[in-house]
C-alpha cells in the first residue's frame, strides 16, 4: 500500500513537471504572440481581396434563444469575403422558424450541393438575397458532426470554420486566424481559436462590450480552467505541432483536407478531437509537411453551463469522447511513424488525461488507508494532498501571468484577486468532481450509453441584463 502511495506521489510530481514543461513552451512563444497581436495590421487585411474566403459553419440544435444574436454577430465580422451557413439539426424547438422570421428567408428552389459526404436528409436550404452571405440548411437530426458535414457539402469556399451556436466571435477573430493561415498557407491544415467564458460579460449588439469575470461559481471555475488549458497548454502543444484538439467552439480548417479524411465522424461526442487526430494521421501517413496551429489572439466567447446537472453532463460527454478517441486510435500509441503525435501527444493523453483519475484516486485511497492503519503517518497523506494542490495552483498562476503578458482582457485588480482565489478554491470540490465526472464518462462508454444529455441555453439578453445590473 505504501509503495503504491509512493508511486502515486512520484506520478503526480512527474505529471506536473510535464505540465510545467508544456507551459514552459507556452512561455517561449508568448513574447512573439504578444508582439504580433499588437503590431499586426488587420485594417488593411480585413478589406483585402487577397484574403482567402471562409465558410462559417454553425450547427444548431434547439438554439432558438441564442441563434439570432449569434447570426447577427457572425454576419458583422471584420472580414472581406465569407458566408455564414447555419445548419438546423432537426431541432425540436423553433430554431428554424425564428431564423426564417427574423431574416425573412425563403426556401431556395434549386440549391446546389457539391459535397458528397454522407449525411442525414437535407430538407431544404433557406436564403434571402437581402442577406447575401447567409444560408440556413434544414436537415434531419444527425448530431453535430453530421451537421458540420452537411455544411461542408454546401459550402462555397476553400476554408471552413466551425462555430458553436452558443458562442460569439470577436470582430477581429476570423481575420486574425486568416492572417496566421496566410503566413503559412500550404502547410496549415487547422487553426484553433482561444475560447473564453462569456458569462458575466456585458453583451450588446452581438458583441462582448465589457469583459468581466462570471459571478456564479460554476462558470468562474471553468473560466480559470479554460485559461489554463488554452494559454498554458495549447500554446505549448502547438509549438511542437502536437495539438490533439481544436476546440469545436471555434476552429478554422482547410476544406480539402477535411474532406480527404472523410469529414467529421458522427455518432459520438469528441468529434472536434477526432477530426484533428484524423488530420494528423492523414498528413503523417502521406508524409505531407503540415501544421495544426493555435491562434490565442483570435477569441471566441462562449456560454459556460452554470448548473451542476449541465456541467456534469458536459464533462461526462467529454470523458466518453476522449476515451473513445483514444481507443479508436490506439494504433498511434508509441508508434514512431506518427512522430510527435504518436510518441508524445497520444501517450501523454492516455497516461495523463484519460487514466489520470485512476492514478489519483487510487493513490489517495492507498495513502488514506495507510494512514488509517497508523495515524502517525498523516504527514504522508498531507504531503500528497499538498503536492496536488500546490502544483495545480502554480499552473493556474502561470496561466494568469501568460494572460497578463499578452492579452489583459480582465482589467481590474480585483479580477486578478478573484482569479487567484478561485484558482485555489478549485481544489476544494470542483477538481475532485472533475475527476469523478471523467470516471462516470468512462463508465457510460463501457455501458454503451451514448446520450447527449441536456444542454439548455440562456438567451444572451438575459445574460447581459444580469451583467449590467451587477
Amino acid at each position: 500500500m505504501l509503495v503504491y502511495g509512493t508511486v502515486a506521489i512520484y506520478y503526480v510530481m512527474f505529471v506536473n513537471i510535464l505540465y510545467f514543461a508544456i507551459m514552459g513552451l507556452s512561455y517561449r512563444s508568448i513574447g512573439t504572440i504578444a508582439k504580433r497581436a499588437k503590431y499586426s495590421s488587420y485594417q488593411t487585411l480585413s478589406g483585402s481581396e487577397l484574403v482567402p474566403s471562409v465558410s462559417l459553419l454553425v450547427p444548431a440544435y434547439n438554439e432558438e434563444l441564442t441563434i439570432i444574436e449569434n447570426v447577427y454577430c457572425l454576419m458583422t465580422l471584420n472580414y472581406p469575403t465569407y458566408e455564414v451557413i447555419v445548419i438546423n439539426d432537426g431541432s425540436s424547438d423553433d430554431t428554424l422558424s425564428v431564423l426564417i422570421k427574423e431574416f425573412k428567408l425563403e426556401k431556395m428552389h434549386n440549391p446546389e450541393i457539391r459535397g458528397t459526404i454522407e449525411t442525414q436528409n437535407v430538407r431544404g436550404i433557406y436564403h434571402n438575397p437581402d442577406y447575401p452571405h447567409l444560408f440556413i440548411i434544414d436537415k434531419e437530426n444527425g448530431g453535430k458532426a453530421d451537421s458540420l458535414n452537411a455544411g461542408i457539402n454546401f459550402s462555397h469556399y476553400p476554408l471552413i470554420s466551425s462555430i458553436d451556436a452558443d458562442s460569439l466571435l470577436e470582430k477581429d477573430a476570423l481575420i486574425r486566424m486568416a492572417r496566421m493561415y496566410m503566413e503559412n498557407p500550404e502547410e496549415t491544415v487547422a487553426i484553433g481559436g482561444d475560447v473564453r467564458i462569456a458569462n458575466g460579460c456585458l453583451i450588446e449588439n452581438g458583441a462582448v462590450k465589457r469583459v468581466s469575470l462570471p459571478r456564479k461559481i460554476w462558470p468562474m471555475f471553468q473560466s480559470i480552467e479554460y485559461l489554463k488549458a488554452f494559454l498554458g497548454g495549447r500554446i505549448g502543444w502547438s509549438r511542437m505541432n502536437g495539438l490533439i484538439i481544436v476546440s469545436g467552439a471555434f476552429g478554422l480548417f482547410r476544406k480539402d483536407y477535411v474532406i480527404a479524411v472523410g469529414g467529421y465522424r458522427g455518432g459520438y461526442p469528441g468529434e472536434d478531437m477526432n477530426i484533428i487526430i484524423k488530420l494528423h494521421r492523414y498528413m503523417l501517413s502521406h508524409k505531407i509537411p503540415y501544421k495544426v496551429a493555435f491562434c490565442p489572439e483570435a477569441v471566441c466567447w462562449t456560454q459556460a453551463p452554470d448548473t451542476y446537472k449541465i456541467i456534469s453532463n458536459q464533462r461526462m460527454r467529454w470523458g466518453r469522447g476522449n476515451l473513445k478517441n483514444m481507443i479508436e486510435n490506439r494504433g498511434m500509441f508509441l508508434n514512431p511513424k506518427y512522430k510527435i503525435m504518436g510518441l508524445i501527444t497520444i501517450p501523454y493523453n492516455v497516461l495523463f488525461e484519460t487514466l489520470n483519475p485512476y492514478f489519483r484516486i487510487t493513490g489517495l485511497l492507498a495513502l488514506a488507508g495507510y494512514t488509517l492503519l497508523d495515524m502517525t503517518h498523516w504527514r504522508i497523506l498531507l504531503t500528497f494532498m499538498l503536492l496536488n494542490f500546490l502544483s495545480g495552483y502554480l499552473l493556474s498562476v502561470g496561466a494568469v501571468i501568460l494572460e497578463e503578458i499578452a492579452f489583459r482582457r480582465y482589467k481590474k485588480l480585483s479580477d486578478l484577486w478573484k482569479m487567484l482565489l478561485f484558482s485555489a478554491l478549485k481544489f476544494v470540490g470542483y477538481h475532485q468532481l472533475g475527476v469523478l465526472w471523467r470516471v462516470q464518462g468512462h463508465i457510460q462508454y463501457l455501458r454503451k450509453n451514448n446520450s447527449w444529455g441536456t444542454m439548455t441555453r440562456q438567451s444572451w439578453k438575459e445574460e447581459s441584463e444580469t451583467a449590467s445590473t451587477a
Partner: protein
Amino acid sequence: MPESLTLERKQQEGLYHNLEERLNKTFPELCGVMFLYCPGPPQLESLVSEFLRQETGSDIEVLKDASTSTLAVLLPGSTLNQAHYQALLLKRHLEETVPEADPRITLTVFPGQVDPTPGVLKQMAESARLGPSSDIHIFTKEEAASEPGRILIVDNDDTIREFLTIRLNMQGYETLEALDGTSALELIEKWEPDLVLTELNLYGIDGLPFINQIQKLPVENTPKIVVLTEQRVERTISQCFQHGVDDYITKPFSPVELDARIHRCFQ
C-alpha cells in the same frame, strides 16, 4: 421695457457696433477674433490679456460684454491657424491656473469667411456662451448662413468620427454620430439626415443588409448613402452600387476628395 434694461441692451449692442467699426477701420488687414466665455475668475480680462500679450508679443485687445460676461479678444495680424493655436494655449492656461474653469471659445478671422457685422459678431459670442461642446469652435460662413445639410456619420472608429465631425461642421453641415448599425438605423428614422456617411463594417448590422435596411426605413426622403470603408473587395463595391449606394470611397482616403464627393451629393 424698464429703462435699465434698455440701457444695457444699448450698451451691449454698442459693443458689437464698436467691434465692427474697429475691425473695419483699425485693423483692415487681418485680425483674429475670439470670444471667450468663462464664468468664475473675477480678473478674467487682465488674466487673458496678460497671458496673450506674453505669448504673442503683439498688441492684443480685450473687450467685455458686461451683460453676458463674454470677452471679445482681438488678435491683430494673426491668421486663423495662429488664432486657433493661441486659443488652445489660452484654454490650457486657464484650465491650469483657475480651478474648475470651463472656458468656451469661438473664433474666426477677418477679413475671412464672414463679414464682421454686429449680427455675426453677436452670433459668435452666443455660440461661445451657449455652444454644446467645450471644444474650441471655429465660426464659418456656412454657420452664419445656416441652412446646412444633415449628415449622419456612422463608424466604430473614434478617430474617424472625430475627424469627420470637425471637418463637416467646419463646412457648415449639421452632423450626428452613430457607433453601430443598430443605433444608426434608429437615428436615421428619428433625425432624418440628408446623407449617411458610413463604414461598411459595423457592429449590430452592417454591409449590404445595413444598406438595404436604410432604404426600407419609413422616412419621407431616403438619405443618400456614401460609404467610406476599408473594404476593397471589388464584388462588394459593385454590390453596394447595385443596392443604391451613391458613392464609395476606400480608406485611406483623401479628405479633399471626400469633401468633393459629399458636395456632389448635395447638388
